[in-house]
């Protein structure tokens, strides 16, 4: 099929879709498709020619809205491209549209969007997971080939797990965040959401590498594609027993079956322990709240975004910020509270220390093996509205994904071959060792078919 035909069929499907996966459609998609098809025909196309991308709506695409699924940025047009977008376009990837998410990435269900919840394509009564809800939904439902999401505490891996697609969070500092709207700056990473491992490896190969617009990315660009076919004979995989505590039975059973498949592929399975998983959720949330409250200061209604005039400057800012949703406000308030003079000693300082403890423990565990394995989520996709009224309940959903962010490690969610609701199996590796994850994921993918 020619790219323009594919794009047209995607556009038709998107307009028919009831999943609420898209926020904006690229008006130039058809023109872009024609232009890229010409390059393909001439044999002069880039590495991503033929791929149709959806992009999470917290990543800047010049000339398109950048809403972060918030009323605050409902009409904000990005004046610039994110570095990842620039790199994708340079390799002839086509952007079909911007996808739905939890507002400012605050959520694990996809329900906090100002534009309404995204639905799970496997069961529209259930959530697709968050915050990169539209990324996972659009890929799983065949509304795009691949997607870019962002992951601060599991925002790529959680929806990948709930929607049955592959989601990868790279090592912190591998992919430029320039153009990714901040959630928690020391935890955020952009990563691919795909149907298979090799697509993820290809996208990762295009978007990684140093960028003078993001200080935290320093390494030179790597090519990951060649590692996908690498054998995993002798690769030591550590099963983290704590990761199975409190998991639904079906999840534990299927993940253990998945581990068995890797064993059959030649992996050496060992047991490891990461006891501090017990404090991962409070540690993550306190660190994230603090950074998030700082990141959200810029939304004052003065330079861009929603403005509601008040009686003076302060009042105008506060009134304009009423455009922010409940969960966003909750996190700003908590982040402000724990960093205020009187309370920071008790909360923020402790959270920073706890983060170091967890990082240390994860690195220690990875000294004993090449990869850590367990489930991505403790449960399968829950019903719409089931957890949204109870923030604590919602926060606890992140228990298995946040340690990777707190430690800056790469991690991926691999869709298991199951009937019924999708289940994700999670792999962690040492910093910079994404190739080990890709090889193991590809091995599972090949063997489970």
């Amino acid at each position, binding site marked *: 099929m020619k790219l323009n035909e594919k794009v047209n069929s995607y556009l038709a499907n998107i307009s028919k879709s009831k999943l609420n996966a898209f926020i904006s459609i690229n008006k130039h998609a058809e023109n872009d498709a024609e232009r890229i098809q010409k390059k393909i025909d001439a044999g002069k196309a880039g590495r991503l020619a033929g791929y149709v991308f959806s992009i999470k709506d*917290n*990543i*800047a695409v010049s000339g398109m809205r*950048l809403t*972060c699924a918030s009323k605050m*940025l409902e009409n*904000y047009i*990005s*004046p*610039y491209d*994110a570095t990842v977008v620039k790199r994708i376009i340079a390799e002839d990837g086509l952007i079909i549209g911007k996808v739905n998410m939890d507002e400012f990435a605050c959520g694990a269900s996809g329900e906090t969007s100002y534009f309404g919840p995204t639905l799970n394509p496997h069961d529209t009564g259930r959530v697709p997971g968050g915050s990169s809800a539209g990324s996972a939904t659009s890929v799983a439902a065949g509304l795009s080939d691949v997607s870019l999401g962002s992951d601060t505490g599991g925002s790529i891996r959680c929806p990948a797990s709930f929607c049955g697609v592959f989601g990868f969070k790279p090592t912190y500092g591998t992919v430029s*965040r*320039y*153009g*990714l*709207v*901040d959630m*928690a*700056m*020391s935890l955020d990473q952009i990563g691919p959401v795909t149907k298979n491992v090799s697509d993820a490896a290809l996208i990762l190969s295009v978007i990684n590498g140093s960028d*003078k*617009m*993001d*200080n*935290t990315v320093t390494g030179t660009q790597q090519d990951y594609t060649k590692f996908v076919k690498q054998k995993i004979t002798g690769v030591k995989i550590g099963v983290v027993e704590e990761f199975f505590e409190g998991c639904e039975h079906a999840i534990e059973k299927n993940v253990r079956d998945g581990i068995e498949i890797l064993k059959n592929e030649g992996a050496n399975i060992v047991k490891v322990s990461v006891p501090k998983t017990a404090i991962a959720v409070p540690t993550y949330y306190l660190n994230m709240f*603090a*950074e998030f*409250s*700082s990141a*959200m*200061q*810029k*939304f*004052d209604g*003065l*330079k*861009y975004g929603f403005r509601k005039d008040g009686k003076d*400057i*302060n009042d105008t*800012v506060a009134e304009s910020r009423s455009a922010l949703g409940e969960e966003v406000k909750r996190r700003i308030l908590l982040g*402000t509270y724990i*960093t*205020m*003079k009187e309370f*920071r000693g008790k909360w923020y300082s402790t959270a920073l220390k706890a983060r170091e403890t967890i990082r240390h423990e994860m690195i220690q565990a990875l000294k004993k093996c090449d990869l850590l394995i367990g489930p991505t989520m403790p449960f399968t996709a829950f019903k719409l509205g089931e957890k949204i009224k109870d923030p604590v309940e919602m926060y606890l959903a992140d228990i298995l994904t946040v340690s990777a962010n707190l430690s800056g490690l790469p991690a991926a969610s691999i869709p298991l071959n199951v009937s019924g609701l999708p289940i994700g199996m999670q792999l962690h590796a040492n910093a910079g060792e994404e190739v080990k994850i890709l090889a193991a994921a590809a091995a599972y993918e090949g063997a489970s078919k």
Partner: protein
Amino acid sequence: MKGVKIGLEIHEQLDTESKLFCSCPTDYRDAEPNKSICPVCTGQPGSKPFGLNEKALNAVIKIAIALNCKIIVGKPVQVRRKHYIYPDLPSGYQRTSESIGVEGELNNVQIHEVHLEEDPGRFFLREGLVDLNRSGTPLIEITTDPVFDSPPHAREWLEKLASILDYLNVTKKEEGTMRIDANISLNNGNKVEIKNINSFRNVEKALSFEITRQEDLIRRNQTVERETRHFDEKMILTSPSRKKETEEDYRHMPDPDIPPLLIKKELVEKIKKTLPELPQSKAARFVKLYKLSGQNAENIVSDPYAADMFENVSKFVNPILASNWFVGQLKKTLNYNNMTLRGSKITEKQLAALLKMLEKGKITERAAELALREMVLRPADPKKIIENLGLLEFGDLNTIIKEILDKNEKAVNDYKTGRKEAFEYLVGQVMKITKGSADPEEIRRLLKRRL
């Protein structure tokens, strides 16, 4: 004034091409509003700071060394976010580094610390308009201990500091880039901070007003509130700020987008070697080498441009003569025209030639003065100026006087017999020949000597 304690916080823009965390130009003065801006310095969603401008960091290190600070070496220096929401601050926080130099000293004033930060944009508060061109320009902040005991003391020291910054040549040259916050307490009472004063003269005025105000409160047994005040230039008074800044909680936090700075010892050594001769040692050298008076030396070295020109002019004329002209007529003429020496475009060759003519007695002091006035406004070869103004070529004044005396025997005799008006007649004759370019006082002096 007993019990007065004044401390200063000085902000000055650093001389870099691009901003501190982005590649926008810093010469926003000539740009139309909101033109030198990008996603970074306007806090657009998703933007991140680029690498910290190395030249800005090196400039702060250089200044800190010149202020005899201990440089924080081999220990991470974090760039932190200082949170507050205001229209001139597009991100809702200002990026400011931890101390880069500490425990410095300049002219017996202890310097508490020196660090690097970014300038906010400009908020025209009466009109409610914001221009973000300035946003992100690198600034140095220098904080002194509260050791000044009077407003003139603070002003004099600021002038010394300004002269050092001039020498180091790493700060912006444009007028009005320096902004000063002054804090003041009387008899260990509450500290009052006066924000954003834009000139040394105003620092002195604002502080003097504050002392009077606080003394008055104390006399009436009222308490001096701990607060932030603003100086009103036109009314020459300070008034309380409506922003409750002392109560504000900035929630300082290391900026996660910027890894900490690590300053290496080798870098400090390298920068140390680039330090120019600073005013204090230059003045001492001038006294020793050129035998200048301490006062003249100090006066000349306060401007590095003047000091260099003085040394070059002194290669051709007597240094003491030159120094007297630098601190005397030259300065007077420049001040009168509201100009700086650098701004006048007068060359050292022109100045040397003029003083040489004076030294050789080819022109009178009066003629030299008149020529200098012209030269400051329209720099040119002094010979031409003198010619054009008709100040020459009457030769040596002594010769002219001798001629006049020879020609006017009667008047000489009249004078000698006590007729005072004869003397004025002789002065007039000399003036006529010199076309008014000779100094009448000098004519009188020379005439008296001869008669």
